[in-house]
């Protein structure tokens, strides 16, 4: 863990000798004192939060469609939505709501956690986790992301 409690408003020498090499996200991250930047959901004040909020809003929009879309369509066009699906035998609306919405939410949750790990990596943030390596990997995919080092 870095002793992050000592951060002072950006007067450390910020011109990195290896400047050109580091990712731009990582460099701007080091220049920011997060305790001086406003938190406002609608007005991101740091590059990190702007990127993070872009992921959040994308996910949120997809979530709203997956969760409330099918039932709304069913109210609008009941005839089309209640047709029986081939093979599985479900009425379409029932399937989309009972299975589509929950599984969609899980998929989006997984997507978000991956994206957020990738964002941390881009900004050179290392959570230095110790215990969540082997067991912390849903379906064997998370081990690669986020555990830089």
């Amino acid at each position, binding site marked *: *863990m*870095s002793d*992050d*409690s000592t*951060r002072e408003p950006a007067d450390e020498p910020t011109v990195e000798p290896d400047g050109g090499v580091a990712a731009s996200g990582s460099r701007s*991250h080091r220049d920011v004192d*997060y*305790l001086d*930047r*406003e*938190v*406002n*959901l609608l007005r991101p004040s740091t590059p990190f939060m702007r990127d993070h909020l872009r992921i*959040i809003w994308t*996910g949120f929009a997809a*979530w709203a469609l*997956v*969760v*409330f879309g099918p*039932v*709304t369509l*069913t*109210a609008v066009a009941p005839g089309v939505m*209640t047709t*029986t699906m081939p093979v*599985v*035998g*479900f*009425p379409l*609306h*029932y*399937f989309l*709501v*009972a*299975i589509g*919405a*929950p*599984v969609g*939410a*899980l998929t*989006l*949750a*997984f997507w*978000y*956690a991956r994206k*957020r*790990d990738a964002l*941390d990596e881009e*900004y050179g*943030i*290392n*959570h230095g*986790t*110790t*215990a*969540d390596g082997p067991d*912390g990997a*849903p379906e064997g995919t*998370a081990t690669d992301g*986020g555990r830089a080092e």
Partner: protein
Amino acid sequence: MTGLLVPLQSGLLPEGLNVSFKLVPAIMVTAMLLLFLAIGYVFKVADTEGMWVGGRSIGNVENGMAIGANWMSAASYLGMAALIALSGFYGLAFIVGWSAGYFILLIFMAAQMRRFGKYTAPDFVGDRFNSDGARAIAAVTTFLIGFVYAIGQARGMGLVGVYIFGDIGIPGLSGYQSMVVAMMAITVGYLTLSGMLGATKNMAVQYVILIVAFLAGLYVVGFTQGYSTVLPQIEYGALISQLGTEFSEPFVNESYYLWIATAFSLVVGTCGLPHVLVRFYTVESERTARWSTVWGLGFILLLYLSAPAFAAFGTDLYAQNIGPVYGDPGMTSAAGDVIVVLAAQLANLPTWFVGLVAAGGIAAAIATTAGLFIAGSSAIAHDIYVNIVNEDATQRQQVLVGRLSIVALGVFTTLAALDPAAPIAALVSYAFSLAGAVLFPMFFLGLWWENTNRQGALAGMTTGLLIWFTPIVNEVLPSYGLFAGAAGADGVIFPALAQWLPAIGSALVAVPVVFAVTIGVSLVTDEPPLETKRMVRQCHSPEPMGQQQTAEDVVGNDGSGGTPADD
């Protein structure tokens, strides 16, 4: 919901359920309770950090299981299948609301809450808004949530308990009522003995018990009755066309508006429930907070994708063996609430196996009741008694107040559950509306808009409480005999109000109003102190934090001075 409210007052014993004392299931339930106590004893902890937040050391999968066990109450295990069986397509609003809400929790709150790093939900509200008044409202809300939520659990335990132990016949009470009293006495005793000892370890075990019992029940019923083979969660689709239009036809039982209102309330309620949020304080890092939410949702879906299948099988078996499910008389809500157990019994499975399914229901109810009562009693003991009433309270006094509030919660809950006004899932969703209306906007705005201030929070929470209470007075209290004189034939005082502000989905109206009030009042009053703003900023900073640090520690060390204003 009104359609479901009326018939159930008649008889509280589910028809068709074999009520008698059964030795093997009784031994199984007793052994299960002893196991929980033993685990609590083995993993007991001494310090407060360990007591309340498990030393902040819990990993992804374990916390995911704890989220699942904490989450899946009698409402998930029993009530959801009941609503799907009885209310058809409307019942799916519960599946969607209770699972999809975790995504909102994940993207907007889980990691930030972890970084804030306090002990309880009222702690967050009190410290974020620098107000003992806000802390008190949050604590009272937490207590109310515990009470309302637990009524549904007590009803579930009572209904399943009569299957296992039969009518134990406490004088003056019916078989169901006797069992509610007995099961609640056991739960309270169990909690006073075990406290929060090893609660997280216990929750992982409870999750395994309840999911194994539920899935085993589903697979065996589906297989022996010829409904399904390897994937009942999908195979029940073919059965739907035989179950009558009430099972799947959209909006025949309830309107589109009520569907959306219910699902929305359950989503925001998920994000406002104190006993859910505390699970993010227990993990080792914010990254674990995120991934354990994903795991938790996955574990939850194992049950949530299976419940409709169980409901379909149960509905079909009921129709074959007992009588028509829909119409008059139809299946009562008491029978609906045990449809999972009933399905196993009607499939002629051995008694011990039906007992296993029933025991899973009791494990679910006890795990959640424990989490709720701990949250409720810590709100009273920690947030109100120690922070407001008696700041010099000794450990002894605190523990005493905590125990007394657990007993008080137990007594209130038992009384309310003796003649419950609604099916399990409906009772539980009142608590979700409350959490969504009062606590969710505080968490959300408190974390995402640094200018939310004390006055805004107080105004918003008061508004939320008022909006929640209105439909409760309007349609729920008359069923308990309060204001019954003012209610019309359908048990509701103002039917138009009940239509647009239903108790089960009142958060759809409450949340936008509370947001507007909180933002408006915050804008016209002074900004919160810089110290507080820096704390909020720290919650969003991507800089890693120490495992035992809170946002307040980090900000405090920066030494910008000034103490938070007092109320």
